[in-house]
């Protein structure tokens, strides 16, 4: 197995056993990035020299008997909303053409303390305000969307062009691209991971979290970001109560997605979990709360530049920012108060179960030129709205939500299952995800690339 094909946990074990050096690993992942970038465009910028220097330093520290932990010497990408001192944080926008971050974000510091090696900054839908990331392409099929807004991070991880990455999630922006590219994405509890130095889309809804090849890897990155210990093993799920939504999460969902997720839920039962039907509360208001919070907050963040350089925004983002000026304070406050109600209603529902299991997104990666989807009930929905629909509840409630690959549809595109827990109960969500993952023979797989890339390098 070539180093870029290793999961984070396996790479860390190889480094610990001195079978692999951080320099070899970083060189391999950089070469892989070079081989796939022309097709996938995951990165805004790859910082090869800096990465090699950081990897060499990690190798020296480890050789000197000063290992820092499992992330030490592991190459990773950061969504280009995350400040790294001295580098531009472009937000994949012309508005930020001359930007240079004057300090590190909190998560940059924590990853640097853990010894992770920065490979580069990954593409985001402009300022995270969209669900497709048009600069990047899906790792499984370059004619299809990467998903967004952390599209570059998901594509890089899925293609082996980063061993892990960080993204942000305001309405699914970690979970959507993770699902569409067949990798794991974790949106932790609101506020668990500090957002200092991370460009905001919507303060009330923004979260930072990892995109990884496996749930085990996500646990390792979360541990580094929060300072807690990673979990030891998956174990069985005896005693775990898994909520299966009677409403909302299986409405207007592609048949292949529903079938794969229901089969995965059956596997949770086989592992000892008890399945409990649950009624998802206040579903009529999910979109209203999401938009009522996000639209005015995003407009507020961009107040200055929307007046000085509006022409530098992409058209889809500019019109949303402008329209946000026309909402009333009353609309925003109703959304905030409805969020209070929704959190309370979810807390009551979550007394019956430990996690809720559901599809992460209702459809797999759409062709890049597809704008809308027609559902079996005759309704038509924009592709972006459908990608947000099943993600938004966890942004509004702040609950931790994980997406795990559960197979492919008939076109061979990956499907994700979402596991939603109670606030601050990441451990439960990760435990269930790991137990499920252990039942799959393809856990941690890379996206199947064109044959021409397969032999592009060797260890």
């Amino acid at each position, binding site marked *: 197995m070539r180093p870029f094909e290793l999961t984070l946990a396996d790479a860390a074990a190889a480094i610990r056993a001195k079978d692999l050096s951080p320099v070899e690993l970083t060189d391999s992942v950089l070469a892989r990035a070079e081989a796939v970038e022309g097709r996938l465009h995951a990165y805004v910028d790859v910082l090869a020299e800096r990465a090699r220097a950081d990897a060499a330093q990690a190798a020296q520290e480890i050789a000197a008997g000063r290992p820092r932990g499992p992330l030490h010497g592991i190459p990773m990408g950061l969504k280009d909303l995350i400040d790294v001192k001295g580098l531009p944080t472009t937000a994949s926008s012309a508005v930020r053409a001359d930007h240079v971050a004057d300090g590190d974000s909190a998560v940059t510091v924590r990853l640097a303390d853990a010894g992770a090696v920065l490979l580069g900054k990954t593409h985001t839908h402009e300022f995270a305000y969209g669900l497709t990331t048009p600069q990047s392409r899906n790792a499984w099929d370059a004619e299809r969307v990467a998903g967004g807004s952390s599209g570059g991070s998901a594509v890089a991880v899925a293609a082996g062009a980063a061993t892990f990455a960080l993204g942000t999630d305001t309405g699914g922006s970690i979970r959507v691209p993770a699902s569409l590219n067949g990798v794991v994405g974790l949106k932790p509890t*609101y*506020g668990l991971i500090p957002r200092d130095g991370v460009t905001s889309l919507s303060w*009330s809804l923004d979260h930072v979290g990892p995109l990884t090849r496996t749930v085990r890897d996500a646990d390792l990155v979360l541990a580094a970001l929060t300072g807690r210990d990673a979990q030891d093993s998956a174990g069985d799920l005896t005693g775990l109560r898994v909520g299966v939504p009677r409403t909302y999460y299986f409405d207007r969902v592609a048949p292949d997605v529903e079938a794969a997720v229901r089969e995965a839920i059956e596997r949770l039962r086989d592992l000892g979990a008890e399945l409990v039907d649950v009624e998802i*509360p206040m579903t*009529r*208001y999910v*979109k*209203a*709360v999401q*938009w*009522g919070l996000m*639209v005015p907050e995003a407009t507020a963040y961009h107040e200055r530049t*929307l*007046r000085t350089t*509006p022409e530098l925004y992409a058209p889809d983002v500019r*019109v*949303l920012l*402008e*329209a*946000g*000026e*026309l*909402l009333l304070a009353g*609309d925003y*406050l*109703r*959304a*905030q*108060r*409805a*969020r*209070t*109600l929704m*959190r*309370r*209603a979810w*807390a*009551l529902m979550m007394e019956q179960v430990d996690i809720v299991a559901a599809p992460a997104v209702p459809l797999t990666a759409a062709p890049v030129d597809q704008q809308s989807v027609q559902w079996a009930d005759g309704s038509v929905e924009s592709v972006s709205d459908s990608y947000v629909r099943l993600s938004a509840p966890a942004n509004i409630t*702040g609950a931790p939500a994980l997406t795990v690959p559960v197979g492919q549809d008939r076109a061979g595109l990956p499907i994700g299952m979402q596991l939603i827990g*109670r*606030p601050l109960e990441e451990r439960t969500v990760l435990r269930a995800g790991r137990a499920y993952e252990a039942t799959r023979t393809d856990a941690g797989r890379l996206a199947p690339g064109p044959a021409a890339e397969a032999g592009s390098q060797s260890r």
Partner: protein
Amino acid sequence: MPPEDLAPGEAAQWARRAGLPLEPGRTDLVTATANHIHAVVATLRELDFGDVPPSFDVPFAPEAPEARHAAL
């Protein structure tokens, strides 16, 4: 009474009031987008909020006893 849509002229005036004069040719698009967003968020007017505060004023941890009331 349900809230009314903004007409393009009104949207342009509201935008000027917000200190963001819309460039010529953009008024119709921004008006349509704003009306679409407003139609979605206006459903929240159906809710009876009573004494419920905005969520930025509510501690994250669940749950005070009165929460059970408000949620039902």
